[in-house]
């Protein structure tokens, strides 16, 4: 994961240092580079559409229409952006602490499970109590699932990529077990075929719709507030300072006397909590008002755990920019579904297109990045290569 040296001020992808006055050259590049690369990806997509016998014009018109065409479409996009934004904001915290959290998928699921269990256990509560409770439960569930790899990394040095991937694998099985077992809907009528879903969740737990006739639910406000809160956390609190310090240089932070292990653990825990909240949003904002899966994590999360990483990095690990990037990316996803329905092309094309957009946009990052001041490497442990193979004596730093 790229370290953020030399970028004290938040900014879009790569964290370039812009200072207070606008640098027009950089600005033009930003405005040209990103939309340009996205357009290039969409051009490739157009070729693929043609190869499948569909009209790119119809397809992309449907995409725009489905994502932004009317107030219902806009609300769908906003709702789709909610888990992306929550996960993305959590990633901002984790990555800034130099913790690579790829466990988002599992944390979303665990948060959702705890939130669902809470709602099913307390059906009598009024909405004003139940909804915050379920959001809190989601945060706790996801937070726990983030605390485990966080503690492993902070106190035991276990790499978080390993532990978060493994915990994802565990989460899917826990989810399947619970949804077909203890949390299962026993009132379902069927010949005997089990559907892995919960009972209809109490109406007081459903996220209220903010605007009639649309899908816009409370989750949008929660996500926006979370983004704001994390922005404040990262740049206006001492805890946030510690997170960024640990991320920039673990050794310097240790030397400065910061509680590195605890900070690392908390960073992953917070990241997990936000993912868990995303999970509860997915369940209580869903159309079906149940937690249901097809047996896979992606079937429930829609890859929000991965897409959240993408939008966070597109937003330069700044929660406020992530608001924008999550909305735009959500538009791509929602529009993609609409394109699939209108043109009839396989939905796999949409998945491929998403991947293309990510690759293309991330590839032009170099156009707008300023040359970094390379930090002087202070080797605590000397490099492993032995001195005898090297010709020039100047490189020898003593053997390992």
């Amino acid at each position, binding site marked *: 994961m790229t370290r953020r040296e030399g970028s004290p001020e938040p900014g879009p992808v790569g964290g370039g240092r812009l200072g207070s006055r606008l640098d027009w050259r950089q600005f033009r590049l930003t405005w040209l580079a990103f939309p340009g690369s996205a357009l290039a990806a969409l051009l490739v997509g157009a070729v693929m559409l043609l190869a499948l016998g569909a009209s790119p014009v119809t397809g992309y018109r449907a995409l725009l229409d489905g994502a932004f065409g009317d107030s219902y479409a806009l609300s769908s996009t906003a709702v789709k952006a909610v888990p992306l934004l929550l996960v993305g904001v959590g990633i901002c915290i984790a990555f800034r602490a130099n913790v690579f959290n790829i466990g988002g998928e599992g944390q979303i699921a665990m948060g959702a499970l705890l939130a669902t269990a809470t709602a099913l256990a307390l059906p009598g509560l009024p909405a004003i109590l139940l909804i915050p409770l379920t959001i809190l439960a989601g945060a706790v569930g996801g937070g726990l699932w983030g605390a485990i790899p966080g503690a492993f990394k902070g106190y035991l040095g276990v790499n978080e990529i390993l532990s978060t991937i493994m915990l994802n694998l565990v989460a899917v099985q826990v989810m399947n077990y619970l949804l077909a077992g203890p949390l299962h809907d026993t009132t379902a009528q069927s*010949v005997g*075929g089990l559907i892995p879903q919960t009972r209809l969740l109490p109406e007081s737990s459903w996220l209220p719709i903010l605007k009639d006739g649309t899908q816009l639910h409370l989750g949008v406000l929660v996500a926006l507030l979370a983004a704001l809160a994390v922005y404040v956390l990262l740049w206006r609190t001492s805890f946030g300072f510690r997170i960024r310090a640990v991320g920039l240089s673990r050794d310097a932070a240790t030397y400065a006397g910061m509680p590195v292990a605890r900070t690392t653990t908390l960073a992953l825990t917070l990241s997990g909590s936000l993912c868990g909240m995303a999970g509860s949003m997915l369940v209580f904002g869903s159309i079906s008002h149940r937690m249901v899966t097809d047996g896979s994590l992606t079937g429930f999360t829609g890859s929000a755990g991965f897409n959240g990483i993408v939008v966070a990095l597109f937003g330069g690990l700044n929660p406020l920019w992530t608001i924008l990037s999550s909305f735009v990316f959500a538009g791509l996803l929602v529009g993609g579904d609409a394109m699939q329905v209108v043109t*009839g092309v396989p939905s796999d094309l949409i998945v491929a297109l998403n991947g293309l957009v990510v690759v293309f946009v991330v590839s032009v990052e170099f156009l707008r990045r300023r040359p970094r001041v390379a930090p002087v490497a202070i080797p605590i442990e000397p490099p492993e290569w032995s001195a005898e193979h090297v010709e020039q004596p100047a490189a020898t730093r003593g053997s390992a």
Partner: protein
Amino acid sequence: MRKLLLMLATVAALVLAVPVVSAPSKTDATKLKVALIAPSARTDLAFTQSMHHALLNLQKKYGFELSVSENQFVVANAANIIRQYADQGYDLVIAHGSQYGGTIEQLAPLFPKTSFAWGTAGATFGQPNVYAYEANSQEGGYVNGYIASLMSKTKVLGVIGPIAVGDAKLYVDGFVAGAKAQSKKTVVNVAYTGSFSDPSLMSKQASVFVAQKADVLTGSSQSVVGALSVVRENNLKWFGTQWTQASLAPGNVVATQMYDWMPALNQIITRVQSGKLGGVSYRISLKNGGERIQFNKAAKTPKAIQETAKKVVEKIVSGKIVISTGT
């Protein structure tokens, strides 16, 4: 911060301009419009293929417009797509997957002019525009199990399931019951791999069963393709469900419980055409021909065994055999 606001303003401007740019699409109001949403591909040799095949046949008969959204295993996405089809005025939206049920329950009241059909399950939620369809998979499972036990030389059978839910579990329960009914001494080993999409695990599970001396295997879900490679390699016998996997192991697939959704779909479509949008739940079974045991010609199963199978089918149809399914 200024930059962020500028960006947001531009995006907002673009977004507001879109409704001007995009024109509404025209719709042909005369033909019946049918949409199918499925969690796997139409070529999965299992669940979705059986439904898609039936729809294609009915399309030849009735000439309706068919749109397909396959590989929709993300339930939330599928929910939006179902809604879009309803919004666009489709007459019949078939949500082929039990995980879509909760969505149908909530969407049906919002689109009273659209008919929703979903399976495999039995609930119509008391909605006038919801049809449900399911399969008595345990029936064909029973027949398969009976014949498998009959044909097995080692009297050890292996059953590989994905996850113990839905159709898969019904079939497995039926298979076990049928095998035991043929001979109490037959050992039936059942294992669920824990995933619908891991053919590699299925193949290893099959290898394990081979080590346990099983010479007849069965299983369900699209990932059985992995198990079939072990079947080919060890020259075992295979019984299938939902759709024939004979193309994968021509000499080894003895029989398949074929799903033919035509009886159910036929009724649903004629009813929708006459304005009755729902309220009935259908079951395909051996009795109404929606399920049938299809013997694979290439496996050259002796006539006597095929006759026995017919007799078992008759007993199930006439009600002499009752298959219990412990849920």
